[in-house]
């Protein structure tokens, strides 16, 4: 079966409609995937792209529309059924089973047995073959929990392709959907994963969902944009190169707004850091009032450890860490009390997920919600509500319900809750570690705007990130770290003049 342009089509979906009650998640969406291509799918959180994928693999049944797989009608009863037809999905966090060995994990669900006994040697060997075939740097006997996140991700992709490679599948063709395969990975790890995808392209067709527009552009053959449950366009990257800004426009439905960030170095120093010869880093820098100082570094550069050391979760041996001239106390509690905050993109370690938005926002903000009653610190519900509403409005959390349970929020909104908490706390210095990981472009824009505004009012930020776009948008100073040391510092003037490409070159040259 071929499309009008003569390409062979692997999968087509036409007129897919899916409703959840009154809410129309998918509004007559169509999609097609060609053999051997990488199709990037982008869209805001809640735009319907995840739902669409779930329909494709049989995790959701569409209310209308039809799907054709290699020319034949396809309506999978469930993901397992879909898998036996050669289409599978690798979920956002890889759906890992940390305590199993690699070969056990890879074969989970289709273990090879002789009678009731596991044929471990056979599985181990076949897995080793698979790993070698795909050039994944681990052994069949390693425990999943011991692998680096990138390797874990690759292993879960390998698991999805097991049937194809070992010939155990009914069909030879294979479609793998990757849902945000590189969330929470460092940029080195991301490029490893994407390189693999490029390699495997010859045998597998990929659909990749991601918020990292730049990288998706680099790896995709075509890209489909979903907005408000509709397919607003499919771009062929071979015909015409596409910029992230154009994509941004399609996704958001409007132009990208400019962020104004003060670039002049401030005269007042709020933080002095001299941490020489620590175990994992050796740095020395200072932070001015109202500044956003950026740190770029890949895994192993010590940049994340620096963040943890600043908040107090990583112990430092000696060295100078002074805020406003005073040495900082050792524990996290002490640092927070002295006006330092810490926000990461990993909301599992920051959010009480079964709690309401309101209660998560007030978690560090005791002084704002308490009243003293006979020497007891009582929680004043009215004050708590006011605080929540104020900061929910500021950060534009949707849905605007303070009692909403955080678990039901999208990833971007979860991040906003954490940000709301810290904005309410108004620490003099906020350390941000990859704050927008896995967050969609619209939310990212809002984040940047909030940070810029906060900085303009005198708050200082340390932004640790691997997103160059983010760093160059926000920072007045950028330190590039490698092997635990600051190897190059770019000041605001330089940053303004250099484009993203130039900075990338500088980094490559390190």
């Amino acid at each position, binding site marked *: 079966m071929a499309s009008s342009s003569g390409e062979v089509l692997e999968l087509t979906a036409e007129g897919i409609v899916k409703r959840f009650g009154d809410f129309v998640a998918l509004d007559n969406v169509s999609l097609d995937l060609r053999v051997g291509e990488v199709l990037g799918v982008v869209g805001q959180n809640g735009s319907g792209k995840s739902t669409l994928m779930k329909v494709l693999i049989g995790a959701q049944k569409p209310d209308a529309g039809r799907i054709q797989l290699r020319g034949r009608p396809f309506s999978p009863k469930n993901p397992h059924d879909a898998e036996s037809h050669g289409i599978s999905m690798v979920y956002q966090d890889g759906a890992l089973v940390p*305590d199993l060995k690699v070969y056990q994990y890879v074969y989970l*669900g289709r273990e090879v047995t002789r009678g009731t006994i596991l044929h471990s040697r056979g599985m181990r060997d076949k897995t080793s073959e698979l790993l070698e075939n795909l050039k994944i740097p681990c052994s069949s006997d390693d425990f999943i929990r011991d692998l680096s996140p990138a390797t874990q991700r690759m292993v879960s992709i390998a698991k999805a392709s097991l049937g194809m490679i070992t010939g155990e599948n009914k069909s030879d063709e294979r479609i793998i959907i990757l849902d945000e395969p590189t969330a929470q990975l460092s940029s080195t790890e991301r490029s490893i994963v994407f390189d693999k995808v490029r390699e495997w392209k010859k045998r597998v067709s990929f659909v990749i969902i991601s918020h990292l527009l730049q990288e998706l552009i680099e790896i995709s053959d075509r890209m489909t944009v979903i907005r408000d449950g509709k397919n607003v366009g499919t771009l062929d990257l071979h015909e015409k190169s596409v910029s992230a800004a154009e994509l941004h426009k399609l996704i958001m439905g409007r132009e990208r707004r400019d962020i104004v960030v003060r670039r002049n170095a401030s005269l007042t120093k709020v933080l002095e850091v001299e941490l020489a010869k620590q175990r994992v880093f050796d740095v020395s820098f200072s932070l001015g009032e109202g500044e956003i100082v950026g740190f770029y570094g890949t895994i192993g550069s010590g940049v994340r450890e620096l963040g943890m050391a600043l908040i107090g979760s990583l112990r430092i041996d000696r060295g100078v860490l002074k805020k406003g001239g005073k040495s900082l106390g050792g524990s996290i509690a002490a640092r927070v009390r002295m006006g330092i905050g810490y926000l990461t993109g990993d909301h599992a370690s920051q959010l009480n997920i079964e709690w309401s938005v309101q209660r998560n926002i007030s978690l560090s903000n005791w002084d704002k919600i308490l009243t003293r009653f006979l020497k007891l610190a009582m929680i004043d519900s009215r004050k708590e509500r006011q605080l929540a509403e104020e900061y929910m409005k500021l950060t534009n959390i949707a849905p605007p319900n303070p009692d909403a349970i955080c678990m039901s929020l999208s990833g971007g909104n979860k991040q906003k809750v954490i940000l709301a908490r810290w904005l309410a706390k108004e620490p003099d210095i906020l350390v941000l570690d990859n704050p927008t990981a896995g967050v969609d472009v619209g939310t990212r824009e809002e984040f940047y705007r909030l940070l810029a505004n906060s900085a303009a009012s005198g708050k200082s930020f340390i932004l640790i990130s691997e997103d160059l776009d983010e760093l160059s948008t926000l920072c007045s100073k950028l330190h590039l770290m490698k092997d635990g040391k600051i190897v190059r510092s770019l000041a605001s003037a330089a940053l303004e003049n250099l484009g993203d490409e130039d900075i990338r070159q500088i980094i490559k040259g390190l």
Partner: protein
Amino acid sequence: MNVNSSRLRKRIRDSILILFLVVLVVAFAIGSSGFLRPSNIVSILSNFSVLLILSLGISWVVMAGSLDISQAGIAGLVGILIGLILPVIGYGAIAVGILVGAGFGSLNGLIFTKARIPSFLVTLGTLFVTTGLEKYLAVTAHVLTNGIPIEGRLDVFLPTIPLLNVPRSFSLFYWAAGESILFYMISQKTRFGLRIYAIGSSASSTLLYGINVTGYQVLVFGLSGAISAVAGFLYLPYLNTASPTFTDSLTFVTLAAVVLGGTALAGGVGGFHRTVIGALILSIINNGLTVMGLDALALFVVQGVIIIIAAVAVSRGIKTGIIQ
């Protein structure tokens, strides 16, 4: 990240456990000449066996990521039941008992998976119910004060070494050892065992890979119930009577044996070899202090302290989980 770190840590933790065991044994041997006497070793092993057999059931459930505190109740109930039915239908009573145990266990599993009630609560309820049934039956059969004599009919299940002067109770050890080895094999070598580990490690992921998680969970609870039933039946000839409530005190100690040995309450980690060591440590502590002629009063205190020391020595790197 050091790819070998997990394996290394495991090895270290295993060595510490064994080292601690050795230190314990040496300390007690020095402290009392009677400790290493054959009769005492037999005594240790007998007590250890009772503890272990009950702990094996819990081990399965904990590996799958849940909790089960109903063992003691099921064991007691089945014990009485078998004692009552044995004169009527002979050895078939044993099969009935095991079925009853498996039935209660599966009921635990079903309520847990279908009604979505936390396993601790479900098995707590079952514990109450089975203990109640046990007492009720015991009274009905007027055995509360007299015990039911079994007339040696179950002796065939308890082999002893004929020449050595080994008491009948020692034969429990064969059962304990046999079951431990069997379950170890099953957990390591069968698909069932692997899937149980997977469920304990990440039930949500396992579900995504097409495995019937709830089915396995019900199975594992049923298995635990059956194992408890076997324990109850084994205990009968050991006592040669059938009297209830022998297991009341063991409810939490069995769970402690599992945790002490290093099977994390979070599931997916650990295994039967660990439970064996945990139960062994607890039994040796108990026995050694008694043999040392320690003042019965000081016994408790010292026992508690040693348990703390054992836990501290062993706790490096244990996964924290549902209970910290």
